[in-house]
């Protein structure tokens, strides 16, 4: 069914004009110079489903369109399978004290080996010096010199540093106490990890998506903010199938270039049998499998790595997805508006060639898209042709 192609911002129906909106060689846009990789506006309010949220669509042929995000269901086709990450977000930011020096620190839990609810004794963690989210992570002071065996007091929780992970701020942390005590301590003392671009302290309800289930993510799988129960109902009425998996979405930034280059850390996931079956059925009927969020891409492509089909069960996604990755399962991705240089942006390169992503960046800026977890969204279809 042909759909109207309408631009929200410039009110034209011809949305992308190659060589007009931006001269790719010079970066000249609409009469002014655009710094390459210049930051977009950060969404600074913790509003999951802003009424004016936008959706940039990259068609598989490279055409770029602008839609209101509320039109997402219009862009889906009967038979499509939409898969989202149902991880609820942990209150993974824990203020505390480095006991031997008495100095205040912030611990950000950043990884664990499994999704088992009882497996909460050990976490990979990034440790910051004094301060909190109000200071940009790149400006945060380092923690005191950390050594294995150091004790850390985190409100009602106590922990030890087991080891350093090839970096003075990245540690394996072991909590004292039972799983129930650790969950209770996290619930009472932890806060969602947040960054300086959102000024108000976040509560858990700000970061749990409407479909949040197992408590597993370290930062919200925020592509899922696009979903609501009304959207799910509308999808069902249209004949779009919906399934979930659970992936422990990790932290998006540490403020340290060396650590950021190591992101994403290894992330455990679980794919229910019905989701694996739904993927198999979609492939059989040649329907599109659409991931809501980069974590869904990571989990499903990892699970299909050995046999080319998605296996149900648990796994650990360790691979980085980028321009050389051949996507076996996912046909399209709903995601946030990611900036060049991030691991999320690199993942987009598995979907679209660099030239198209250059155009995407240009359009995102030109049309005032907002970035970060509460920002606007993109829908990128896997390119039919390899990069030009």
């Amino acid at each position, binding site marked *: 069914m042909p759909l109207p192609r309408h631009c929200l911002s410039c009110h034209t129906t011809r949305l992308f004009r190659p060589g007009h909106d931006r001269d790719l060689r010079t970066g000249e846009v609409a009469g002014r110079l655009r710094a390459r990789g210049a930051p977009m506006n950060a969404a600074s309010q913790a509003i999951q489903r802003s009424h004016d949220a936008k959706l940039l669509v990259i068609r598989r042929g490279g055409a770029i369109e602008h839609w209101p995000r509320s039109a997402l269901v219009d862009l889906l086709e009967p038979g499509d399978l939409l898969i989202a990450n*149902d991880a609820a977000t942990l209150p993974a930011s824990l203020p505390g004290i480095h006991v031997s020096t008495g100095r205040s620190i912030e611990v950000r839990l950043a990884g664990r080996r499994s999704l088992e*609810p009882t497996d909460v004794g050990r976490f990979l963690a990034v440790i910051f010096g004094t301060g909190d989210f109000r200071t940009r992570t790149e400006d945060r002071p380092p923690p005191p010199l950390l050594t294995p065996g150091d004790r850390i007091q985190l409100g009602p929780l106590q922990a030890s540093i087991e080891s350093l992970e090839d970096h003075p701020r990245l540690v394996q942390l072991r909590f004292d106490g039972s799983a129930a005590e650790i*969950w209770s301590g996290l*619930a009472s003392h932890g806060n969602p990890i947040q960054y300086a671009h959102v000024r108000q302290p976040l509560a*858990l309800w700000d970061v749990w*998506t409407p479909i*949040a*289930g197992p408590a597993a993510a370290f930062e919200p799988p925020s592509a899922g903010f696009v979903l609501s129960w009304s959207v799910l109902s509308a999808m069902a009425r249209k004949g779009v199938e919906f399934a979930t998996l659970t992936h422990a979405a990790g932290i998006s930034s540490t403020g340290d270039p060396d650590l950021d280059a190591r992101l994403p850390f290894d992330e455990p996931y679980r794919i*229910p049998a019905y989701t694996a079956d739904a993927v198999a059925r979609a492939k059989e009927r040649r329907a599109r499998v659409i991931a809501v969020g980069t974590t869904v891409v990571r989990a499903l492509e990892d699970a299909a790595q050995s046999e080319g089909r998605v296996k149900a069960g648990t796994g650990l996604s360790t691979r980085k997805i980028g321009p050389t990755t051949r996507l076996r399962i996912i046909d399209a991705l709903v995601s946030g508006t990611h900036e060049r240089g991030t691991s999320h942006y690199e993942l987009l390169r598995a979907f679209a060639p660099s030239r198209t992503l250059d155009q995407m960046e240009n359009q995102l800026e030109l049309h005032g898209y907002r970035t970060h977890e509460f920002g606007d969204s993109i829908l990128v279809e896997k390119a039919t042709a390899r990069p030009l």
Partner: protein
Amino acid sequence: MAPRQHTAGLTQSLTGRRIAITGGTAGLGLALVREFLDRGADVAFVARGSAGVVRVTQELPRAHGIIGDLAKKDDIHRIALQVLGALGGVDVLINNASDLGPTPLQPLADTDCEDFERALATNVLGPFRLTKALLGSLAANARENGGAVVLNISSDAARTPYPQWGAYGASKAALHHLTRIWEQELANTRIHFLSVDPGDMDTAMHAAAIPDADRSSLKRPEVAARELADAVTAALPELSHHATLQARA
């Protein structure tokens, strides 16, 4: 105690099912915790008082006790987090915690607004918020296992306008209606919303409402718990062999 007489067809084990019960340290809630543990389910319960939570977890070490106040907005996600942490997910949520309003009971004209607000917060907003916070898990498990249940404990005061039961009756009427709307709106999710009146029970809450009631005429909470567990079990599809094994693993 007489041997259990389950209705034919409802004797299905709840092994592998994950049940969250609010108000689990006394009366019907405690009876529900015991009943679902007896049926093999994994149970997490919530109560305000730490002493009661500790007492019940000492008596029933398989139960996961969580301290929290359903009437407080800030407690809801902390409770949900611990429920999800303890059980890994939820198949059945039982909103049992209730507030009677002013005690002794008062006519509406003499009911303090604060007492009414507390009854609404505990009996309506709390169940609404907790259901919403756990809806993703309930829906995922309904997709995976064929069904999930939210049971809201109702009362005949939800239907009959008893004088002096204004705060409680109006809040339970709202909860009953809320349940019916949830059921309508989420009909395609296979989450079943039940609103059940367990009958007049011999509990501390009943004694607070009607101190001079003839206790021998009242239902034992464990009898009501058995009936409610039967209703929940009937609303859940049989767990597949595969799912049961997975849950046990």
